[in-house]
Structure formats: C-alpha cells, structure tokens
C-alpha cells in the first residue's frame, strides 16, 4: 500500500483485516471440532451425533497444515495475540482462575509459570513478525499452538503446564536457530 492510502485502499484494508479474523475464528472452530471428535465421548455429542476419531484426526491435520502454510500471512497479528495472552496470564495470576471462567481455578504458581512462558514468547514474537518464516519457525509455532491447548488442559487440572513450557522452548529454539543462521561468517573474511 502506498504511503498515503486512498479511502478505497483503507476500506479494503479494513475489510481484509476483519475477514482475516473471521478466517482465524473458522480455523479455531476447525480445531475445536477436531479435538471434540478425537478426545470427546458420546456425552459430548447430542442425540444422533457420534464422535469420529478418523474425522477428528483429519480435521486436526488439515488445521495444522493450514496453520503452517499461512504462517507468513498471520504472523503480523502474532505479537498482538501474545500481548493479549500476557494480559490474560496476568489476570490468571491476579484472580486465581481461568480468564472469563471463575469456576476453573488456577493455582498462583501455575499461573506464574504460564506468565513467564507467555511473556518470553510475546517478546520473541516481534522478531518473527519482521522476517520471513522458514520451516523451523513454522514447526515451532505449530508446536507452541498445540502446547496452548495441552498446557491449558494441564493448568485447568492444576498440574504443571509442561506442554506449554516445551512449546515455549520450541519458539525459543527457532529464534536462536534464526539468529545463528544470520550471524555473519567471520572466518570467511579472514
């Protein structure tokens, strides 16, 4: 877009952003549908509906491929999502329960671990936004996304969110790998 965008360009940009969020919600819905089918029981389905493990795995696979393939498109909102997540982690720490869910209690020490991991990933997310993402970045981000679901489940069961820590380490490793790749080769100039 040009330095001084026209009204039409700004309207287009606004609709593009809104449509992007709708697509993001659709992706999240795909994941929820997949998880419900893979891990759900008959109790999670209304009459006439039954869980299908195969369908669930297909849905999660498709969602994973979409997530990795479109990473360069959604990476611009990644820091914003992580900043909001940092606020969420602070709220959990202060309130002692899941965000918007007072009945789901989260011990303070677990909330503190979550806050530490989320804050580190939030800080790193700004570096991801600035550069084209390679396959290592995409896999690391996919692992982190999966860790939010698994780690969140662990936290709601009042267990150490080990998965979230592993996901955070994956993002940290991807960042470190990129730094190493970009480091100028000092031996070549000698």
């Amino acid at each position: 877009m040009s330095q001084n965008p026209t009204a039409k360009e700004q309207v287009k940009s606004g609709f593009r952003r809104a449509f992007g969020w709708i697509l993001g919600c659709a992706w999240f819905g795909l994941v929820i549908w997949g998880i419900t089918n893979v891990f759900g029981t008959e109790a999670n389905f209304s009459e006439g509906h039954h869980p299908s493990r195969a369908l669930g795995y297909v849905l999660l696979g498709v969602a994973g491929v979409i997530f990795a393939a479109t990473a360069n498109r959604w990476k611009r909102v990644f820091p914003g999502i992580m900043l909001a997540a940092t606020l969420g982690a602070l709220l959990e720490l202060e309130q002692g329960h899941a965000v918007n869910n007072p009945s789901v209690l989260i011990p303070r020490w677990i909330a503190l671990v979550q806050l530490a991991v989320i804050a580190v990933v939030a800080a790193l997310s700004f570096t991801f936004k600035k550069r084209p993402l390679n396959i290592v970045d995409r896999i690391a981000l996919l692992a982190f996304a999966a860790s939010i679901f698994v780690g969140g489940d662990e936290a709601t069961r009042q267990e150490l969110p080990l998965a979230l820590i592993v996901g955070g380490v994956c993002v940290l490793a991807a960042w470190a790998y990129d730094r190493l790749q970009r480091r100028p080769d000092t031996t070549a100039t000698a």
Partner: protein
Amino acid sequence: MVSRSEVLCVVAANNGFTLGIRAPGQTWSQCMAANANTYSIGGATELTVNVATGTNSNISQTTSIVTGNGITGLIFEGPGAGDFLSAAGNGAGSALTYGRRTSDIMSLNLAGSGGLPQVLGSTGAQGFFQTAGKWLNLGLDEAEKFAVDAGLAGAEAFNCAIHR
C-alpha cells in the same frame, strides 16, 4: 396507538429473536461476568461449532489465556460466573446474531479532502501528526486482538443492558 417498542416486541416474539440477555433479578455487572466467556473469541467460536455440529464441549476454557476476552476479564469478575453451560444458555441466540454488528472491530479512518483537521495541513503540526500517525500505525497489528475483544465487550454490554 401502538408504540415502536411494542412493534419490536411483536416482531421479536414472532421470530423467537431475543435482544436482551440479562436474566430477571440479575444486575448488569452480574450479566457481564456471567456471559464473559460467550463474548470472547474462543467462547463465541466454540458456541458456533457446538450449535453447528451438535456437540457440547468446553475446550475454550483451556485456551482462555489466549482466546479469552481480556477486557471483560479485567473489569468483570463474579462468583460462579464461569459455568460454561449457564453462560452459553444466557447468551444463546444473541452472541452470534449481534456480535457481527460490532463495527468497532474495524477502524476505518477515511483519507481525502474534507472531514477532520484540514487546518493542520497548513501548519507545522502536519509533520508532527504524520510522525504520530506512523507510530500509531506501527501498533495497529498489535492492537487488533484488543479491538476484537473490545467489540465483543461492547456487544455484551449492549445486550446486558436489556432484560430478557
């Protein structure tokens, strides 16, 4: 003579269409706390999936740190408000219908002649505002999640202002 509100009530009754989500005897703050999960990205998406696929899940509570509504989480907190089923029940039929009308998700600042501060174009303030605009634009991507949350919070506040 039939008033406009009476006409709206008749239309609502015919369509099974309810605007208000506040239960009888419930305060506005209690309503906001009780429906906070439904009016978050995660809760609204999960409710849509549940209705569309005939499922009953509460996965969004495990991802609430990311998909929860930080704005309503920051302001409203009430005992027992996190019961997903009651929250879904209170918000059913309203969140999906009215959430889409939250025009404040998109900030469309129209360029071109006319409208806002034209006088600044002829002063030294123009450079300042161009620079400030660039800095504000730098934070636009980062603010989008908060803007979506603010839109959902606005829709919830509007619906909680009206009794069922």
